């Protein structure tokens, strides 16, 4: 028969003022299996804990009930105290008679009766407690970063510097993402390539970092600390071990296709290095347009290659590796404004370009060596219109959210145009100008001082007239229609998550919201974690943000990964669910309801009558289960149960309440 010790705390006068603690102790002595009940001034104090330990020895107790403040305050303290005694730390229940009893009631008699009831329920529950031990799962000390943009690179560098092995999986032939496409970065106007390419080179050269470019995540299995990721490496047709990146093949290749890196401005050959500062700076062959691969003609690159690095027979390879943590850094894309806004020309006019295309124009290493020219006829534009919130903050035609960075980079564009083209005019149609960073407002003031004209209103229509692009809009401050004849129009289009994010999220078992942004564990308190243990996120995959925030998040995600990979084993909470496999009928409803996909149906040998059979039963993965208990309430036979809150215990609590 259990021997329970009940310890009631005065908490100075916090409890004793409203609850007659001696009466509660006297009542507790009558409860079943209670061997000892006493009160003390400060149960959580050192002498208080010593008194408890002493009584455990004197009265040979095996279970403890402490009636004091909220378990959220001192449950951990008392559990640590029990570690020093012969009683298992989980044979302990705490009755909340301060926050939910003494402090919220005035009538002493009724408050005492409520305290007695709470103690009676705790005694009933502790009677059915089982000794629990924390179990541990091994951790593979390697991290995987999905996405090679600045977020992925920064996270990988931080993790690698902490001494852990990191793999970056990037679907493009080179890492760098969108940042390396930009010319200048606000608000300091330092050159984007100058600050991002050193990071890329560090990543390329870091002993702990392995770059897997032109690769995608194929399948993810396992759980925190023990992920098994299958990576699909698309055929490159160039053996990067032999190739030194001399670029001879690139110059000889006859085919020319629009360059994705340059946002369609300018062209690139079939065998290409995406951009000069690419890491790894080794070419790949684009199978869709290479004459050899499509029509089995040409083959010049194989002939000219001094190191015979070309291999037309290359195919997709799959490799599976074990990782302890995964960081999602898949970045963003600009929305396809042409479909959303046919009134802006629907993509017909070459001179209506996006912010990224302008970045390529103004970029010294871009196709036009930094000269801002009109893509249609190559002439230098005089009047430029910048239209903001194209797709953003637009419930019915585009995205409902604000893409956060466009106000600043539009101001930057205006500044660059006014700077590079003397006598040019820049008109910026805006709804609001948001400058939420350090030095942002000053940058906005300087841009207006340079002569950028901000017109408060939306552009309703853009059409070509002769050589000019007529932008019709309104100026809500003056309250009248405005028409601007422009040589070139730059649209600050909305950001949206990378195209394949739904596929990646599905494989990782993380959720994405209605706009396909990855859902973080808690918007305010756990921004870089996801609901799935061991999977972290950073950068614009979680929502629109600018480079400073992205890099900050990358560091945070890296810190979380380091915290996880720092230990050889990860301690899992013992308050998780477990299955009585003799009674389980394998219906699988617990598998459906588990938020963490911690339950799976497995085949186990079993007995049916006296026959040996293999049964399908549920099995809980102790690494993933967070102990919510949803499965325990779904199971009709009650054979999956949550340790610490078993069906039997809650039933006893309900019974005790009404005896």
């Amino acid at each position, binding site marked *: *028969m259990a*021997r329970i010790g009940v310890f009631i705390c005065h908490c100075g006068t916090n409890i004793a003022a409203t609850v007659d603690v001696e009466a509660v102790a006297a009542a507790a002595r009558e409860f*079943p299996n209670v061997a000892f009940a006493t009160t003390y001034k400060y149960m959580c104090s050192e002498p208080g804990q010593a008194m408890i330990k002493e009584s455990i020895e004197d009265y*040979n107790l095996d279970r403890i009930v402490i009636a004091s403040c909220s378990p959220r305050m001192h449950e951990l303290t008392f559990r640590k105290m029990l570690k020093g005694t012969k009683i298992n730390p989980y044979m302990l229940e705490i009755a909340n008679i301060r926050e939910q009893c003494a402090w919220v009631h005035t009538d002493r008699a009724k408050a005492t009766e409520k305290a007695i009831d709470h103690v009676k329920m705790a005694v009933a529950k502790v009677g059915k407690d089982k000794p629990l031990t924390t179990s541990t799962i091994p951790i593979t000390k390697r991290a995987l970063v999905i996405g090679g943009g600045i977020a992925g690179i920064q996270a990988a560098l931080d993790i690698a510097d902490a001494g852990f092995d990191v793999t970056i999986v990037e679907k493009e032939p080179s890492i760098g993402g969108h940042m390396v496409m930009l010319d200048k970065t606000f608000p300091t106007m330092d050159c984007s390539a100058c600050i991002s390419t050193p990071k890329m080179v560090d990543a390329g050269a870091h002993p702990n970092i392995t770059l897997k470019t032109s690769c995608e995540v194929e399948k993810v299995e396992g759980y925190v600390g023990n992920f098994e990721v299958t990576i699909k490496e698309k055929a490159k047709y160039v053996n990067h071990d032999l190739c030194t990146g001399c670029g001879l093949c690139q110059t000889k290749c006859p085919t020319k296709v629009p360059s994705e890196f340059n946002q369609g401005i300018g062209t690139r050959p079939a065998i290409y290095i995406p951009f000069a500062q690419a890491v790894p700076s080794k070419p790949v062959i684009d199978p869709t347009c290479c004459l050899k691969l499509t029509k089995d003609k040409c083959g010049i690159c194989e002939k000219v290659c001094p190191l015979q690095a070309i291999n037309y027979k290359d195919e997709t390879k799959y490799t599976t590796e074990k990782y302890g943590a995964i960081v999602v850094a898949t970045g963003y894309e600009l929305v396809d404004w042409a479909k959303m806004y046919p009134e802006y020309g629907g993509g017909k006019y070459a001179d209506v370009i996006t912010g990224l295309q302008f970045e390529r124009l103004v970029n010294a290493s871009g196709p036009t060596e930094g000269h801002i020219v009109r893509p249609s006829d190559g002439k230098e534009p005089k009047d430029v219109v910048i239209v903001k919130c194209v797709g953003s903050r637009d419930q019915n035609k585009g995205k409902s959210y604000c893409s956060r960075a466009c106000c600043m980079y539009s101001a930057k564009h205006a500044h660059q145009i006014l700077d590079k083209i003397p006598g040019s005019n820049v008109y910026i149609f805006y709804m609001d100008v948001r400058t939420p960073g350090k030095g942002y407002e000053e940058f906005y003031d300087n841009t207006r001082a340079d002569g950028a004209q901000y017109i408060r209103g939306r552009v309703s229509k853009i059409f070509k007239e002769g050589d000019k692009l007529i932008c019709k809009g309104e100026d809500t401050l003056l309250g009248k229609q405005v028409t601007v004849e422009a040589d070139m129009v730059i649209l600050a289009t909305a950001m949206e998550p990378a195209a394949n994010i739904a596929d990646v999220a599905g494989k990782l078992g993380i959720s994405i919201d209605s706009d396909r942004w990855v859902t973080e564990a808690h918007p305010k308190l756990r921004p870089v974690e996801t609901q799935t243990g061991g999977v972290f996120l950073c950068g614009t995959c979680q929502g629109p943000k600018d480079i400073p925030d992205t890099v900050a998040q990358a560091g945070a995600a890296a810190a979380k990964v380091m915290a996880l990979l720092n230990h050889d084993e990860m301690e899992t909470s013992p308050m998780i669910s477990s299955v009585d496999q003799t009674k389980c009928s394998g219906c699988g409803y617990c598998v459906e309801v588990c938020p963490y996909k911690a339950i799976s149906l497995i085949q186990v040998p079993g007995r049916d009558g006296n026959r040996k059979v293999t049964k399908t039963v549920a099995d809980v993965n102790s690494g993933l289960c967070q102990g919510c208990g949803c499965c325990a309430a779904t199971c009709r036979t009650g054979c999956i149960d949550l340790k610490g809150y078993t069906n039997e215990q809650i039933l006893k609590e309900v019974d005790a309440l009404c005896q």
Partner: protein
Amino acid sequence: MAIDHECSCSKNPLVPTLCKVIDVKQETPDVQTYTIQTVDGKKPFSPLPGQLAMISLLGVGEAMFSITAQGDDYIQSSIKRTGLLTEAFHEMQPGQQIGVRGPYGNHFPIDDFKGKDILFIGGGIGIAPVRSLIRYCLEHREDFGHLDILYGARSMNDICFKEDCLENWPKAPDTNVYITTDVPSEGWDGHVGFVPSYIEEVGFKPENKKVALCGPPIMITLSSASLLKMGFKKEDVITTLELRMKCGIGKCGRCNIGSKFVCLDGPVFSLAELDELPDEK
């Protein structure tokens, strides 16, 4: 085999008398022996060897246990920790109040045993019912012939009633004691091996000999096979059945094997009687 029962419990056979545990002796890591008296210090009843008592731990449950020994003012029962109820028993401290009713079941056929040599075979906790018969025979030593006691336990520290097995019984007149353990354990120089093979090894003569055999079902089937091989007749081998008994007085219909009730017509059966019953054991 139904012999009238001298039943000293209250007139209602289903209501236990309130008793208390006056001593708890840890025989082995999972077996404890409880000395039980009524609250006013008397013996609840004086059972015959092999009889059972329904011991109930108020608020937890009740089950049938064999009475392994008795004195002038106490009875003793040994309980092995196997399930929820027995675990609760093992948490008992002296002074704990329990309910006891009985004695139930028939008992070892002492009259048939009179004047005969007797071979006692006990396996694990099965030694407890056999011990009640051994103690009876030692108290009336002159009524019985030569005694052989063969007791098999898992390992040395799993041997119950050490002072009986290792000191008292070997000293008793004309009594041989054979102790064996399933696995060798340090500090044990006695025989190692399973009971059925040990029986054949010693080679007991079946003439004029009765056998009292108790233990786990697997041991009973193998041991009785060995005994029959050595020439013992089925009527001479007596064993007990520990089955699911609820009321203990042959009314609730739970412990029936065929038309026989284990709690009333048993638990002591000869192998011959067991063969009569349909095999639903």
